[in-house]
């Protein structure tokens, strides 16, 4: 008699508790259609950029820019402008990319978004370097080195030092370049950016190569190749193979291995449609084959090189 109501009470309390707790949460708020469309365009652009479908990416990023502009969402508009410029850069439209990045930088400066502004500046450095606008690059480096570096963002520091190191190397200041690359590598390692660290290592190998420190360069290219292989990064693998082949050729040791590396690099650059890098690899391959007295193969490689140069000129025209 006593226990029966207790059991009932317990069951009833449990039922009430479960019933209250099991009630469903309300559905999440629905984004306005215009915002959803703009976000969808940006997301599609991101995916297209990730798959290197650049012409489609340009269209989607332009769409995202227009939509964010209509919404007066200047922060996202700046991001879309930046990524549109990167897609243009990948298509070789450097003249279009520069103004877009400037626009993005202006917007970010107005909004006080310092990190994004730094990203814009680094992208501008890369584009201007590609366009061989030496004066513009020099002026930008002068402006950026005078500005406070983004200490809270080691990744941005790494990116900036990587560009600065390459600039110093081009200027022939190898000691400063080495120091800058070290700082870049430290910053990349600190953020756990394995891909960035591998790129900086490749640039350090290139610096050693420029200073004729061939054993060091060979070791670094080998390490870079291993890292790029583990990251499954085709451009990095091709660059490392080419670097290793060049160093072996310059050292005059193990020419068959150098030939293999250069052949593979040239073929990879062909697949990646990087004609300048492919031409450089073919040039080294011709030298390597001549050094091995493989005349017919050297002639064949020379013919491919000339064909590539002719095609490049025709396209340039």
């Amino acid at each position, binding site marked *: 008699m006593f226990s029966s109501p207790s059991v009932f009470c317990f069951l009833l309390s449990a039922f009430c508790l479960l019933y209250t707790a099991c009630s469903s*949460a309300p559905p999440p708020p629905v984004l306005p259609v215009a915002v959803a469309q703009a976000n969808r365009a940006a997301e599609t652009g991101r995916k297209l950029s990730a798959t290197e479908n650049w012409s489609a990416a340009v269209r989607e990023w332009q769409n995202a820019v227009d939509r964010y502009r209509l919404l007066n969402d200047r922060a996202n508009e700046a991001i879309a402008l930046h990524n549109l410029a990167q897609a243009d850069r990948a298509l070789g439209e450097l003249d279009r990319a520069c103004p877009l990045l400037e626009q993005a930088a202006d917007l970010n400066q107005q909004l006080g978004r310092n990190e994004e502004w730094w990203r814009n500046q680094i992208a501008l450095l890369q584009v201007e370097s590609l366009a061989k606008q030496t004066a513009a690059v020099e002026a930008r480096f002068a402006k950026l080195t005078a500005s406070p570096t983004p200490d809270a963002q080691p990744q941005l520091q790494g990116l900036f030092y990587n560009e600065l190191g390459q600039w110093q190397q081009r200027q022939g200041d190898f000691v400063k370049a080495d120091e800058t690359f070290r700082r*870049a590598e430290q910053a990349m390692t600190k953020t756990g950016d394995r891909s960035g660290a591998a790129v900086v290592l490749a640039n350090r190998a290139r610096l050693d190569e420029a200073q004729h420190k061939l054993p060091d360069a060979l070791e670094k290219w080998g390490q870079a190749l291993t890292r790029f292989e583990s990251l499954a990064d085709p*451009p990095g693998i091709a660059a490392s193979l080419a670097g290793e082949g060049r160093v072996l050729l310059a050292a005059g040791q193990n020419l068959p291995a150098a030939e293999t590396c250069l052949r593979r690099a040239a073929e990879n650059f062909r697949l990646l449609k990087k004609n300048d890098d492919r031409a450089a690899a073919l040039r080294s391959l011709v030298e390597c084959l001549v050094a091995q007295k493989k005349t017919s193969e050297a002639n064949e490689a020379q013919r491919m090189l000339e064909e590539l140069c002719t095609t490049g000129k025709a396209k340039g025209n």
Partner: protein
Amino acid sequence: MPLQDLTPELRTRLSHVERAVGVFVVLATLLLLTGFFYYLYHTAEAKGWFIPKVTYYTYLRTGHGLKTGDPVKLMGFDVGTIKRVEAMGPADPYNVFVEFRIKRPYYGYLWSDSKVQVAAADFLGGRYLEVTKGVNGRSTVKEEDGRMLLLADAAKGLYEPITKDSRYELEAVESPAVTDQLQAMVAKVEAAIPGILGITNRINDVLASANVTITNLNVTALGARPVLTNLAVITSQLRDPHGSLGEWLIPTNINRQVQTTLASANTTLTSANTTVVTANTNLVEVAAALKRSLENVSQITSNLNAQVQANSLILGEISDAVIHTDELIQGLKRNWLLKSSFTGVTNEPVKSIVVPGIGGSR
């Protein structure tokens, strides 16, 4: 031990314990009753016991596939249930009486010109009632001052308060049963067959005409044989040097060639005759095969039509099932117990893309 044998202190203490137990039992009972009534109320609300309903009825030819408790639909929604399906008397002009109740607010859609449609519900002969929205008539139910009034005279627009026995008649539009439809289809096919047979008869006529033509050609060829014979006689006479043009005009070799040619022409004509006869036979067979194919096609289309007629609502129901399943899953995704199972990977916010560059082509 009797209670009187206890000491006063023990009696007082026992009395307190009994009071406490009594209070606890009363409280527990109250809680139980509260829970039960809450459950009852919630069930009643969920099942729509508190929702006002209006009773309608209609007469049908057959009650096949309809049963009490089946839902009544309006524009695809379940808006009520069938309450009664009864056979009418033997002398009554109507066969089956069907009474159903429509709940608020859907009876507002039912006007005096609304109809009750009976449609096939599944493959097993099930049917359901679907009431149609009114267009030009008067509303069958009106609510005034908290009272519900039912249309009593549509022409005059008179309404009467709804009582327990009030009900409104809606006209039924009963589509024939699937078997009837099939039968009608078979009848149509039967009616169409003479046309098809007419076509085949015409083909037969054409073939017969062709046969006659070929026979005439054969006769012509046979008639040409004496001509050929005469030609042979003429040539033999021509070959004779006496009384004719002589061998100098038609040399021996040309004469032989003419003979050979004529013989070949005769052989060719005979072959052509044989070919035409064979073609005639083949055409007759082809026509017969064509007739069989047409009959099969006719059967297939009639079967297809019957299937489509019987399953006209299946696509809508599949669509409903998909929508309801989606709603169920969306609900489960928000449930406190299950939502952790559905936490998918969300897209990270889009950022400005900058990648470090390897020196080289610059």
